[in-house]
Structure formats: structure tokens, C-alpha cells
């Protein structure tokens, strides 16, 4: 009995100690969404359980080792205890109940983070090796940076151009994969103004580590101002528009303008140059070729590159936009 009381005290102290220790360690990034609040709340229940069960097993074990160890010169065997059915039933049933309870609050927490706000802002997310692209159908904007108004739910409708990627902002907690040929949904309600990073969380090839983009959570007014500034770019001169488009659509992730090598050929000096093709022929890179390369990339494959790497932009860009990009490419020396 004396043993059991000591162990019980140790377990209680251990539980409090471990939980307090975990608390001071700083285990989570900033909490920047409503979903993060729900996740962190459930995580804290887990931490209490972990602290308790860890102390229960380790304290009892450590106590046994310290008190029941074989002393110098001692002989003989341990107590002959084969088991205890009541005890076994007890420590099967209690965890069973605990598990059902945990699953129950787990489901409630899931319900919380999946709560749908009908007035949510819709953003279509398109990912590819290795870029992020955000389309705002309400405003006709496409951007490589994600701008979100604070305190309003955003409904991310996501798909991938090539392999599986995963959308994750650690400060928002929740993540969701983007699967080619399928649209997945993620809903987040940012509740803190600030700048964060979208990280691709699913291994998507060599440059996976660098597949990031910025997220700006801004006030309602700043968001409106940003929308306006984005929409007005459509009216500026084609060269500037082209330059903005190639960044917005992630072209520059694969193409450099300074001659350096990326996934695709560099654009430096491409206009009017002689391009060797994979089928052994050559072609002059006139305006027509540039336009075809954008809307139908598999028509001509440049030597040393593979087909199906560059996505087709036929359905994403309209005629003026393609023309603007071509005009911009023509200026690159």
C-alpha cells in the first residue's frame, strides 16, 4: 500500500511537471486563424493525456527499478504474481472509454474547423512543379501571392497541374492536398493581420523544399485597395502587362530571363533565334512560335527537354494576355 501511495503522488507530480514543461517549450507557431484555435484546443487535451500516461508508466517503472532492484548479495526470485483479471478488465475498459471520448471530441473539433460560411471568399488554387497560383473568380484576378481579408472565411478550391502538392500555412494549422484531376476544398478564416508563407507539404519532386509563396492577411480596406490595383494593371501597356503576367502565372519558376538554367529553357535572346527541336529539326523562334509554345507547348519540344513538363496555358490566358507575353518575350536579349 505504501508503495502505491508513493507512486500515485509521483504520477500526479509528473503529470503536472510534464505538462508545464511542454507549455514553456513553445511548441506551436502563431495562431492566425479560427481553425487554429480549435486545433490547439484539442492538442492541449492530447498534451494532458500524454503527460498523464507518460508519468503513469514511467514513474511506476522508475519506482520499481529503484525500490525493487536486486541488492548486492540478495538471492531468490521476485513475487510470484501471474496476473489479475479484474485489473486487466479495468485497464482495458478505462482506455476504451477514454478513446471513445477522445474520438468524440475529435469529431466535434473536425466539425468546428469544417464549418462552412456561405459568404466565404472563393479563391481557386492551382499548383504545379513548383509554383502556386491563386485565381479570384469574383474579381477576375490571378496572382502568385495570396491576399486574404482578415476575419472572413476563404474557400480554397484547389487542384494541381501535375503531381500531388499540399497547401499548408503553419499559422493557419490546417492543410489539404491538391490532386491532379480532382478539386479539393480547404476553408480557413484568418483572424490576424500579417504576412505568412504557404508551404507545399507533400513531396512533389526535387524543388519541393522551395515551393513556397507569400500569404498576406490584410484589413478589409487594404484588400479592396489590392483588388483595385490588380484589376487596373489590365489597362497598362502590353510590355508591362506581359512582364506581370509571367510572374503571376509562375512562368519564371521554370524560365529565367538572364540565361541561367531552370526547368525550362531560358528566355534570354530567344526571339528570332534558331531553336533545335527534340525531333532533330530546327525552327526559328518567331512570334508565332512563341505564341504556340505558350498555348500548345507540346507542339514543338525543345531539344533536351521533355514533353508534358510545361503546362498548357490555353485555357488560362486569353488572346490579349498571350499577345502581351509574346511582346514582352521579344524584348528579352
Amino acid at each position, binding site marked *: 500500500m505504501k508503495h502505491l501511495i508513493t507512486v500515485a503522488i509521483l504520477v500526479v507530480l509528473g503529470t503536472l511537471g510534464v505538462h508545464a514543461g511542454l507549455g514553456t517549450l513553445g511548441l506551436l507557431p502563431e495562431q492566425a486563424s479560427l481553425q487554429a484555435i480549435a486545433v490547439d484546443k484539442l492538442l492541449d487535451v492530447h498534451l494532458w493525456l500524454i503527460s498523464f500516461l507518460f508519468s503513469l508508466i514511467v514513474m*511506476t517503472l522508475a519506482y520499481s527499478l529503484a525500490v525493487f532492484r536486486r541488492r548486492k548479495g540478495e538471492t531468490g526470485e521476485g513475487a510470484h504474481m501471474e496476473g489479475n483479471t479484474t485489473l486487466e478488465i479495468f485497464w482495458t475498459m478505462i482506455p476504451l472509454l477514454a478513446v471513445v471520448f477522445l474520438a468524440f471530441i475529435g469529431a466535434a473539433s473536425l466539425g468546428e474547423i469544417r464549418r462552412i460560411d456561405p459568404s466565404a471568399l472563393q479563391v481557386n488554387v492551382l499548383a504545379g512543379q513548383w509554383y502556386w497560383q491563386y485565381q479570384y473568380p469574383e474579381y477576375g484576378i490571378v496572382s502568385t501571392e495570396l491576399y486574404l481579408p482578415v476575419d472572413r472565411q476563404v474557400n480554397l478550391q484547389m487542384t494541381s497541374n501535375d503531381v500531388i502538392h499540399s497547401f*499548408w500555412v503553419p499559422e493557419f494549422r490546417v492543410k489539404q492536398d491538391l490532386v491532379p484531376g480532382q478539386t479539393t476544398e480547404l476553408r480557413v478564416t484568418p483572424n490576424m493581420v500579417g504576412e505568412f508563407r504557404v508551404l507545399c507539404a507533400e513531396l512533389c519532386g526535387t524543388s519541393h523544399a522551395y515551393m513556397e509563396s507569400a500569404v498576406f492577411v490584410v484589413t478589409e480596406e487594404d484588400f479592396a485597395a489590392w483588388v483595385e490595383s490588380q484589376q487596373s494593371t489590365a489597362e497598362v501597356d502590353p510590355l508591362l502587362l506581359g512582364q506581370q503576367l509571367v510572374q503571376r502565372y509562375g512562368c519564371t519558376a521554370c524560365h529565367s530571363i538572364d540565361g541561367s538554367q531552370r526547368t525550362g529553357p531560358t528566355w534570354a535572346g530567344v526571339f528570332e533565334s534558331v531553336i533545335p527541336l527534340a525531333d532533330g529539326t530546327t525552327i526559328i523562334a518567331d512570334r508565332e512560335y512563341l505564341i504556340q509554345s505558350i498555348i500548345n507547348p507540346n507542339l514543338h519540344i525543345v531539344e533536351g527537354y521533355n514533353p508534358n513538363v510545361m503546362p498548357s496555358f490555353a485555357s488560362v490566358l486569353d488572346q490579349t494576355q498571350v499577345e502581351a507575353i509574346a511582346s514582352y518575350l521579344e524584348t528579352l536579349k
Partner: protein
Amino acid sequence: MKKFFALGLVRGLSWEIIGTALGIGFVTLVRLLIGLPAWKAEPAVVFGALLGALFFLVGVGAVDDWFKWAVGRETGEHFDDSHPGWRRYFGASLDHKVIGIQYLVLSLILMSVGGLFALIFRTELAEVQMQFLTLNQYNTLMSLHGMVMIVSILLGIAAYMNYLVPLLIGARDMAFPRLNAFSFWIAVPAGLILLSSLFLGGFDTGWTGYPPLSARAPLGMQMFFLGVSLAGFSSIFGGLNILATVIRLRAPGMTPFKMPIFVWAALATSLISLTATQLIGLSFQMVMLQRLFGMGFFDPAKGGNPVLFQHLFWFYSHPAVYVFVLPGLGLISELLPVFVRKPLFGYRWVAMSSLGIALVGFLVWGHHMFTSGMAEYLRVPFMYSTLLVAVPTGVKFFSWVGTVWRGKITFETPMLFLLASIVVFLLGGLTGPPNATVSTDLHLHDTYYIVGHFHDTMFGGYIFPFFAALYFWFPKMTGKRLNERLGQLQFWLITPSFVVLSLWMMRVGLLGMRRRIADYDAALGFEASHLVMTVAGFLIGLSLIVFFINVWYSLKKGPPAIGNLWNSRSPEWQVASPMPVHNYDQPFEVVGEPYDYGLPGSQYIRFKGEK
């Protein structure tokens, strides 16, 4: 020279080279004949590797007897053992003890290779930005580390199951000795093919090989798929063999609840590997076919579905983690009573908990896919089933604590490793539920938290028990004791560094460190943590070197193992070490309970002709 080529392994390797060349030539010839461009690396190399593996099996002699039976020739009970001494281990043998040790050595070799890979990319991670690896090299090493370790673990548990199960149940050998030899030898070309991916462009998908990424990866991907598929046969046949052995060949009087507890664990493990391994083979082969013949199983452009792969893959790969840990947990339960001199607490409950874990383990695979885009309504059921695994696992922990309570505890090296197993596996187990409840998993999935969590389960459930068992049974295998001082040194090197490593992994994961990234943003502030983890990794490597030195030194200079070293009740310790060639000269009969330590006058077994 002639003697060298008489070694089965050397013959097998020579045949493998010939087979590979023939396979490559054959595909090229066929392509030429049907008017395609003759040289295409992928089909040629895949077929060559496959043929090479089959040639290896013929060359090494693992299928000799089946050929003889096919033409109606008689064969002996054993392959004729023309190679005495150490040479025995380099060729096909039918003795389960030899095969067990072959498995053990191959497992240790792969463990070292996989560990080396980890140290290489861990060094790269110590600082931000890429220092000496390219992104593709990083991904290849990281991916191979995973799969090489998994194969090493599968071989390691096969080693113990092979060596121990017949001894523990009093059988002369396994039920199907030839299948047993085949299961081992197929793992050799499988391992070689797996490692060859390193030289064939590597691959960048991680050990999970998800398409569409794996459908586009370099040629190394195919070698990975093929190597794993072949290694799968080793698991499937091995599982079948253990099941048949345990069901058919137990000593008289050994009713199910008088079996040593490790045998229960082996049984549960084998049930899983016999019935689930096919699914990982299937999913991998489907991607192979997609790459070779354009079958669009997982290609959305052809109506395929990438998420289907994940279902098939995890239907094996979740139960597989129980294949990795159940034998280790069985070893803990098996050995703990010896060092605390008390019966295993609640033997029947522990035995049933292994089966319980194995069965529930089949229903939980979806917890790897909470973010995958699978049907949303599947999330909650998978959360319930996953959390349910905690119940039988809890039974094991409580039973260990109950066993240690009021024992007469001693602290030899095996016991130290057992204690570390319990604590580390506890860390792994307790950090599991946050991945089971969906909302928290949406944060944790694909981060270093997961990496830390499963390394805890693998070390606690496999690595530490593996060493406990090795220190315990090495004398039985070799007749020499391992050095106790070096054993303690190894223990004190590996344990603290591993605990630090895994806890740090979980911490940076929670803070936002994604898994499988070659490089990370300096702004995250993880550089110091990564340095700590890298140093810890190297200390673990050092502990392995100490272990190998110990093996080498003890084989040369170690004291001979005489008598019942650990004062164990188990039958194999009642006879001489190393174990006689045909196991027990006298068959034994079970007359009592296996773990009645502390009950005066009790007896577990009685040899024939003995009172």
C-alpha cells in the same frame, strides 16, 4: 580461386550478372524485331533486373531441390553441407539457425547502409542551403534511407523468427525448409536491385512512391519498385512458413496458451505479412506497368485516380508497422520476466493483445490520408478505428509495468535495452493519438512531428528490442558472450542521443518544419535544432560502431557461453551453446507454464527420459 567460386553467394552473383545482361539483350532484340527503336533503357533494365534476380536464385542453389523433384529425383533432408564452418553461411542452407543468422547479417548490413544514408543527408541538413548534395541526390538518399531501413527491419524480424520459433516450440526445423531458404535468398537480389536505383538516376518520391510523381521520376524509381516487390516475396513466404511451423510442429503438451509469448507475436506478425504484403506489391507493380506500357491506373488524363494508389499502398503499409513492432514487443514480453525473475503479468491478455493489434491494424489505413482528398465521410470512422489500437497497446504497457512491479530486477545489457524499448515505444505510442484525431493531424501531417513519432515507434518497437535480443541470444548463436562493458557503452551512447533526436524532430515539426525537404528557410530559426539532431544522429552511428567492435572482439576473445547464462526457463537454454545442429537431441514435452519464475519446484519442459 576455385574455392571462392564454390561459395553459393559468389555463384549467385555471377549468375545474376549474366541474367541481367541476357534480359537487357533480349528486350533490345525483341524491340529490334518488331521495328521499334532498339534501345530504350527502361524496359530493358527492368526486365534485365528481374531476370537477374531469378538467375541469382538458380545460381545460389536455392531452387535446386525443386528442380530435382520436378524431374523425379530424390533429395536429402538437408542440402549436402559440403561447406563446414563459416563457409556454410555463404551458400544455400536449409538449417533454420543458419538462415536466421544469414538474415541477421544481411539485416545489419542494410541497417548500416540505410543509417549511412541518413547521416549523409542529416549532415546536409545541419545548415541552411545546399552544401554538398544536389536536390536529386538528397531526395534519393532520403527515400532510400526509408526503404532500406524497412527492408532491414523485415529481415531482422525474419532473423529472430527463423532462429527462435523452432527452438522455442521444440521443432527440428521450419515446416518448409526449402521455401525458407528461398525466402532468404530472394532478399539478396531484391536488396541489390533496390540499391541500384542510386546509380540509375535515383528517384525523388520518398519511400511511399506516390504517383503521379513516381510515374515521372527517373529510372531509379523502377528499381525501387522492383526491389521492394521482390523483397515482398520474402515476407509472404516467410509468414506462411512461420504460421505452418507454429500450427504443426509444437512440442507435445504445448497448448496455445503455453507457447512462449514471442511465438504469439510471431504468429500475429506472420498473419499480417502473409495477407497484406501483396497490396504494396500490387500498388507498386501498377505504377511499373503505367510507366512501361502506359496503363493509366493512376493517371487522371486517362481516367485513373492517384488517390487509389494511396489506399492500396497504406492497406499494407499501415499493418506493416505492426509487422515491424509486434515481434519487438513480443521480445520485450519474452525477456522481461527473465531479468525481473517474475512471471509475465497477464500472459493471456498479452498474447491476445498481439492478435488484437494485428486485426485492428487492418482497419486504420485511412489515417495516413486525412489530407489526401479521399471522401470526407471516411475521416471520422478512420479516426475511431485508429484510436482503438491504443487499447490493446495499453494492455501491453500495463502488463510490463505489472511484470516489473515487485520483481528482483537486475541490469545486464539486454535489460537496459528492454527498459529503453519500453520508454521509447511509450513516447512513440503516446505521440500517436494527435495524428489520429483529424483536426490536429491536419497540422501535423507531413511534418517532422510525424518523423519523430514513427522513429520512436521503430526504435522502441524494433531497434532497442533487436539489440536486447541480440545481447541475450548471441551466446546461443555463436557460443561466445558479448562484452558487457562495450554493451553498456553502446547503450549509453544510443539511448540519450536517440531520445533527444526524436523529441527535437517532433518539436520543429510542430513549429512548422515540413518533412522530406532538402533545405529550409533560415527565417524559421531551425538551424540550431538541426545541428543538435545531426550530432545526435552521429552519436547513434558511433554506438553502432561500438556494437560492431563488440561483435568482432567477442567472437575473437569473448568468454565461452557455458550453461544457462541468464537462468532462463526457456528450452533452448537447457542445452549447450551454440545450439546443436539438429536442435534438441532429446525431444521435450511441456509440463508447466513458461514464465513461472518464483514458483518453487515448477518446471516448463521435461526432456524425454528425464524425471
